[in-house]
């Protein structure tokens, strides 16, 4: 590749060619991991996914000899959201097969200042787990691993869990569910995850109250000495993605209280999720976990999950908002 690369703002007229690139990238991803859904292998299916990013997205397009060879589009958080971040979803990027990681580097160089101007200093890029080229390119741009989305088939577990009472939660369990959600927040704030536990909004409680009533969602609650000591909340994903389809049930929240860990309660809860997923016609289970959650990683990998996609993240010094060299 010798022609000069030009990086410009992404426009609606780029959607068609970008969809062609995305479909080709997804075909490459699927050759490495056949679990990825097949429907995104065509330009026609990919185009609406890219178009849906544009109303609240900021993007750049890379051209070589006036031909689109890459694009990078970030979703932006609404200004009122507590965690302001820029997130490039799986459908938000692709490069032509002939390009190298340098194309990603140049596109990010053009996109990042636009994100900073909007007060977005946390940058995330979602890539297929086996996309080594994208992983290496963003690693060299100071991105580290943040989250993995992982999946496993619904075959039985090799090990038995704890002998404890497990029951399905209902609307009356909202307070117990919220207490366990808070316990999960507190665990997530511990080293080495260091994820700030800033509190949950009333809207999140409302969402959980609704989920407790739904038939396509399930809350399994483990009881220890008469109180709820663990929970797994699973169900149909809100929308299919390039890393999982509607044939995959998703585990949204999983928590065992500190004092109840290492007794097999998590395994028992997971066994209930497996049976529920099978009985409801799903083909696999998926979930996401933080890559620096030591206990979580051990638990999920030990229970047969392997990553299908990874969210890389870079945190910038927010002083860049004023400390850009123009003030001295």
């Amino acid at each position, binding site marked *: 590749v010798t022609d000069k690369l030009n990086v410009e703002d992404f426009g609606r007229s780029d959607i068609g060619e970008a969809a062609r690139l995305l479909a080709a990238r997804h075909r490459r991803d699927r050759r490495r991991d056949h679990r990825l859904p097949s429907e995104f292998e065509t330009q026609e299916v990919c185009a609406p996914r890219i178009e849906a990013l544009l109303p609240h997205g900021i993007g750049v397009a890379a051209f070589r000899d006036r031909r689109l060879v890459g694009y990078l589009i970030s979703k932006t958080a609404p200004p009122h959201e507590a965690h302001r971040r820029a997130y490039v979803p799986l459908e938000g990027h692709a490069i032509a097969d002939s390009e190298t990681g*340098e194309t990603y*580097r*140049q596109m*990010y*160089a*053009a996109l*990042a*200042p636009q994100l*900073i101007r909007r007060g977005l200093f*946390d940058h995330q890029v979602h890539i297929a787990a086996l996309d080594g080229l994208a992983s290496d390119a*963003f*690693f*060299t*741009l*100071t*991105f*580290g*691993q*943040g989250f993995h989305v992982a999946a496993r088939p619904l075959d039985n577990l090799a090990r038995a869990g704890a002998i404890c009472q497990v029951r399905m939660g209902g609307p009356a369990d909202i307070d117990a569910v919220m207490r366990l959600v*808070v316990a999960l*927040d*507190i665990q997530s*704030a*511990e*080293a*080495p995850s*260091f*994820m*700030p*536990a*800033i*509190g*949950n909004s009333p809207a999140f409680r409302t969402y959980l109250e609704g989920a407790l009533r739904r038939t396509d969602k399930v809350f399994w609650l483990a009881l220890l000495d008469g109180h709820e000591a663990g929970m797994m909340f699973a169900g149909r994903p809100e929308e299919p993605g390039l890393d999982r389809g509607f044939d995959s049930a998703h585990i949204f929240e999983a928590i065992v209280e500190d004092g109840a860990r290492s007794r097999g309660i998590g395994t028992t809860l997971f066994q209930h999720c497996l049976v529920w997923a099978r009985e409801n016609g799903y083909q696999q289970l998926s979930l996401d976990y933080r*890559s*620096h959650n*030591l206990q979580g990683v051990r638990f999920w990998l030990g229970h047969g999950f392997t990553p299908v996609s990874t969210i*890389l*993240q*870079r*945190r*910038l*010094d927010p*002083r*860049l908002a004023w*400390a*850009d*060299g*123009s*003030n*001295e």
Partner: protein
Amino acid sequence: MSLEVVPFGPEHLADAASLLATSHTRHRTIEPALPIAYEDSVRALEILKSAPPVERGAVPGADAAASPAAGVAALRDGRLAGYLVAQLAVDFYEREAVVLPQGSAVAEGEGTELYRDMYAEASRWWVQNGYFVHYVHHGTCDERARHAWFSLGFGLYSVYNHRDISPLAGREAEVVIRKVGAERLQDEEALRTGLRRYNASSPILHSYIPRLGGDGHRIVEAERAAMGDPAHAYFIAYEGEKPAGLMIFTPPQPGYMLTPEGAGYLHIAYVDESAREGGIGTALVNRGLAWMRDQGYTSCTLGYYSPNLLGARFWQSNGFRPIGYCLERRIEDRIAWAQGAASR
């Protein structure tokens, strides 16, 4: 086998030196440019002692020169299986925990998981004491370390490179290059300011914090002294009377164990935006390499920020080969208070 992660103390130094020497020997089979000296556990102990650990719980001083340290030792069935120790520093008005290349090692049979266990313990203390920015240095040949740190949220911050001392092959610009002393401090300062502005640009994106009052004065005076030091060489390229590029060559960084024997250090390299791609960089490097040869150095090292697109291209295409990485993780500082109380 039981694993216990405990605060690193003086009682772990001797075993840590053995681990470091063994690990370094293993790395040298992959990267022979690394110095042979630290295959010797006595030399490894010396470099470890040069950054002595402090008591856990003691609040470290803010003076970077004092460089206190804090870290952990991992004991498997009572034997030292690994250690992780950071120097604690304040730089650019941030509190940083910096794990130098000698600041960590693990036994041969250990996997990436041990790094993760050690970091979980060590980082708790760092963050509790306000060190939210973490850096880890290691050799490029240490794939196990790279995977571990990447999985812990670290991305590549800078690359440490090595090259022989022969002239670069590219075209040199026909400009005046002066080896300057403190009388050209103003030109040097102007170019350094340009470099700091460049480093604030995308995608490097390092904040440019103005140095105020006493801090600024101290830095300028230190620079003036260094410009008069015969062990340092400051070269400035001029287009007419306009300073267009700066390179500073120095002895190797003291105590940096990845530095090959006989290597000098290209500390600062910058060409003004208006003068790029004309061969000024090549001319400056070649002038500096000639000076290095005269000084008796046999090779040259330098570091560049990994997201520096222009720099990475220039150094890689001119035969500089990565031998060390520095990785960075920035912790969101809301963690200082957002540990659950707000959630209840």
